[in-house]
């Protein structure tokens, strides 16, 4: 999911930065002080989750956890993911500094989208909530994969071909993230139901 430096063209990088800046501004505005510790914990999880690899098929991919971040934080996903990605770029050389904007949008936008799509459903009875959480975890990864394809289209690669590649490579991650998101939601519903959106 981390696009390396020097792959994308200038306009794509700049529009990525612009979109990310807007997202982060909205996110910081919506993220009140009381929810900052929560955001920090999720940021740390995202930061570490990328080190958990799922080597299935020809390639291997890592966990992203943007579904659960979106579900709990909504727009707050933007600043949280930006912070974690910056640290990953600096400490692990994943992605790059110039591609930070694009990578943030790739992972945070699906998170926000899933928040609006599934946020309400999670508050319902357990059966609906759990399936919503599963789909949320899986769909956010799927959308991120499609966005990687979209970003690469503007350089010379074929959109359908790249998207197909990235999506199939992330199929196992989608399933695992779905399960993890469902577990997290089930747990939070019992222990700390005010963390989930109503």
């Amino acid at each position, binding site marked *: 999911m*981390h696009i390396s430096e020097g792959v994308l063209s200038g306009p794509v990088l700049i529009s990525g930065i612009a979109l990310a800046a807007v997202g982060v501004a909205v996110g910081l505005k919506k993220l009140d002080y009381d929810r900052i510790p929560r955001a920090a914990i999720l940021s740390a999880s995202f930061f570490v989750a990328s080190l958990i690899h799922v080597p299935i098929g*020809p390639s291997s991919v890592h966990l992203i956890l943007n579904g659960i971040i979106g579900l709990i934080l909504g727009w707050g996903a933007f600043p949280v993911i930006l912070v974690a990605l910056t640290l990953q770029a600096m400490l692990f*050389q994943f992605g790059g500094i110039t591609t930070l904007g694009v990578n943030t949008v790739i992972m945070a936008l699906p998170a926000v989208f899933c928040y609006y799509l599934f946020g309400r459903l999670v508050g319902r009875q357990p059966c609906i909530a759990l399936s919503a959480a599963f789909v949320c975890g899986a769909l956010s990864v799927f959308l991120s994969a499609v966005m990687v394809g979209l970003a690469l289209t503007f350089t010379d690669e074929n959109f359908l071909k790249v998207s197909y590649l990235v999506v199939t490579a992330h199929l196992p991650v989608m399933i695992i993230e779905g399960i993890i998101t469902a577990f997290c939601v089930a*747990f939070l519903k019992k222990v700390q139901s005010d963390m989930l959106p109503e």
Partner: protein
Amino acid sequence: MKKSSSNKNLKRCKRGFGLIFFIMVYIAGIGPALAHKVTIFAWVEGNRVFTESKFSGGKRVHQGDVIVYDSDGNQLLKGKTDDKGEFSFGVPKKTSLKIVLMAGMGHRGEWTIPVSDLEDVAGSQTKITSSRKTAPKKTEKQAEGPHLSSNEMRLTVEEALDKRLRPVMKLLVESLEQHDPTFSDILGGIGYILGLLGVAAYFNYRRKSAEIDGKKTD
């Protein structure tokens, strides 16, 4: 009644946590091979440049595009890595070479060979040709005894050294380039995030204490 249901919940939670923990450990234990960083490294040997491409974690890059540029950014040649992630080419031009690997899905690696590395190559190339030209004369001279001329000796030693040093060079270059996340990196990152949390908490504290002060003066 209530107590028993909460007990049940607790048990379920524990079980859920156990399962998550198990999944985490299982996934983490499967093996380090990931696809979000890709590296290519190259070294010069004789008049050929050898490259090796890997995803961090050691998985080789199959059929990745390797593109070689000169110092002005002109494309010199293009090729594909084999199943071992290797690709080699003859030195096309005496200039610093920028070798770019495109491994698909937005993964890109880069390696630069400075001119100084290639100066040696060009030198040894001319040495070889010159030694070939002068070879017949030398054999005439050497007919007297089995000793080699200093030039030939040097070439033979250089060749043997190249051969012997190849794995060492590879290792050196690899260790320079490869930087897999270490435990301290991970802890460092988490530390930064906690630091940011601290900054936010500080501002929150100032805001709240200002509010309280405001109320007091009222």
